[in-house]
């Protein structure tokens, strides 16, 4: 048993993957906690898909994929915020239009590449075992930027999330905070892309935080539960995928989903044991 845990640590790629998974899990849990309370799960999915053309363009131009993904994701996130605010469209309509448009642009650019490239599929489904040292450094730098920003503005973001009208009337720059938060979501997605891929990023953001929301009744505990699950699941998932020789990104997400379902069942059991629904409204 101990050997099964220690043996993979002899491989540099596995250690790097563990480090990346821990960083990604931490950042996703923190940003995701605000995201679930703001009802932005669908937006997270949209922003991750919209990073795709940036990734392909960076590949075509032989630039670093982080830059391409960040430009495309942050740009789309701000555009969604702007269209929803300015146009007389519902937010989910703006999201649907821009998200599909950007993903289509990614596939279009991808189809221009003459030879079939395995790398790019890695961005769709994740390739955490392929993370290099430079990737890890870039990832850590972006993670520090996101965490420092949230650390600085945690209470303003919380107030603007809970009661945007009251916060705006009291003088907080709520719309600037909204845009800033969209940019933070986009950066978090860029950080997570290589680990779990465009398609599954939303689970890293939403599932640990959603589990925290199920189990905690204060925001601090919600974040704590989300971090515990967000950091723990990728570590467990990596080992499972190593032992089973299965896709790592998918395994990580499956672990998180199982934890969520377990929490849901446990909470349902508690509730029926108490004889009625808890005070949720």
């Amino acid at each position, binding site marked *: 048993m101990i050997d099964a845990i220690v043996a993979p640590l002899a491989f540099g790629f596995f250690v790097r993957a563990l480090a990346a998974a821990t960083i990604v899990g931490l950042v996703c849990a923190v940003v995701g906690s605000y995201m679930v309370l703001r009802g932005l799960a669908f937006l997270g999915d949209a922003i991750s898909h919209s990073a795709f053309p940036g990734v392909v363009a960076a590949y075509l131009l032989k630039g670093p994929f982080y830059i391409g993904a960040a430009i495309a994701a942050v740009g789309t996130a701000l555009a969604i915020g702007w269209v929803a605010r300015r146009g007389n469209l519902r937010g989910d309509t703006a999201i649907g239009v821009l998200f599909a448009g950007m993903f289509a642009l990614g596939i279009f650019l991808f189809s221009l590449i003459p030879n079939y490239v395995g790398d790019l599929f890695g961005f769709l489904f994740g390739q955490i075992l392929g993370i290099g040292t430079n990737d890890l450094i870039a990832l850590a730098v972006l993670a520090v930027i996101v965490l420092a920003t949230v650390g600085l503005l945690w209470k303003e973001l919380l107030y603007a999330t809970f009661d945007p009208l009251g916060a705006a009337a009291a003088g907080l720059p709520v719309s600037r905070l909204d845009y800033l938060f969209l940019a933070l979501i986009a950066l978090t997605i860029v950080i997570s892309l290589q680990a779990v891929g465009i398609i599954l990023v939303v689970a890293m953001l939403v599932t640990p935080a959603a589990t925290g929301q199920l189990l905690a009744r*204060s925001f601090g505990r919600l974040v704590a539960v989300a971090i515990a699950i967000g950091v723990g699941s990728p570590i467990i998932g990596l080992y499972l995928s190593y032992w089973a020789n299965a896709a790592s990104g998918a395994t990580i997400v499956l672990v998180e989903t199982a934890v969520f379902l377990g929490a849901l069942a446990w909470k349902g059991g508690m509730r029926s044991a108490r004889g009625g629904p808890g005070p*949720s409204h």
Partner: protein
Amino acid sequence: MTAEWVHPAAPEPAPMPEGPVAVRLRDVSAGYGTQLALRDVDLEIATGSLLAIFGPNGGGKTTLIKLIAGLLKPWSGTIEVLGAPPGRTARRIAYVPQAELVDWSFPVSVWNVAMMGRYPMLGPFRQPGKADREAVAAALERVGMLAQAKTQIGALSGGQRRRAFLARAIAANVELYLLDEPVTGVDVPTQEDLMELLTRESDAGRTVVATTHDLAAASRHFRQVVGVNRGITAAGGTELLADPDVLARTYGGHLLMLGDRGMVLDDAHHHDAESGVERHFHDPGDGGKR
């Protein structure tokens, strides 16, 4: 619950007081998109007023209070709040949204909500300290919610929920309270308790402005009233609510006069699905009890 509904501290009706002005609107028109909601509003609210904005649903009550709170920009005209354009004096203002717009499942306690009142003055670089904790404890004490400080807001009664938000405003140490439907959806004894708190704030020289579609509550608990229906229909002491002309002007076709009783028929009302009859004006006793 006692049946003592007429509180000894119920305020006397009073005309618009003279003296310093907390809120001034000149020639203000406003709306949403291309839809005009309020036209040509001229209004002065004196410092220390305890004022109810009444009128039919869709008449512009919430629009008016949002304009004062700086949450909505007017199309034309000028607004002055505590001596400056709205927004400039935001830290001296507290806005309490309608209870039904609040996510009560949000994972915050009563203490957390009251502490939010301190956030704007702290700014991003400072964390809440001893002075903030003391201010929050004092605010919770004042609204009688210290014992529930750690309770998640969804587990509170309707009256307690509103007290938690009042504590936030008190902790922020503001001069102007703007409340959207503060006494809607709570029973009459709870209304009495909440309004006693607001009356005390007004007595201390702070200005209280609240919307209400409950005319009984407006006449019983406030000192001044402003009628709103696409514009200002009346402004003055609560005795205006006994004036059939004022009611007819404000409610138009939604008002039914039965002898000396006016009955407001508000078909656009969103709380009360089972009947169109909103509240009985001049109806003594338990017209508001649900």
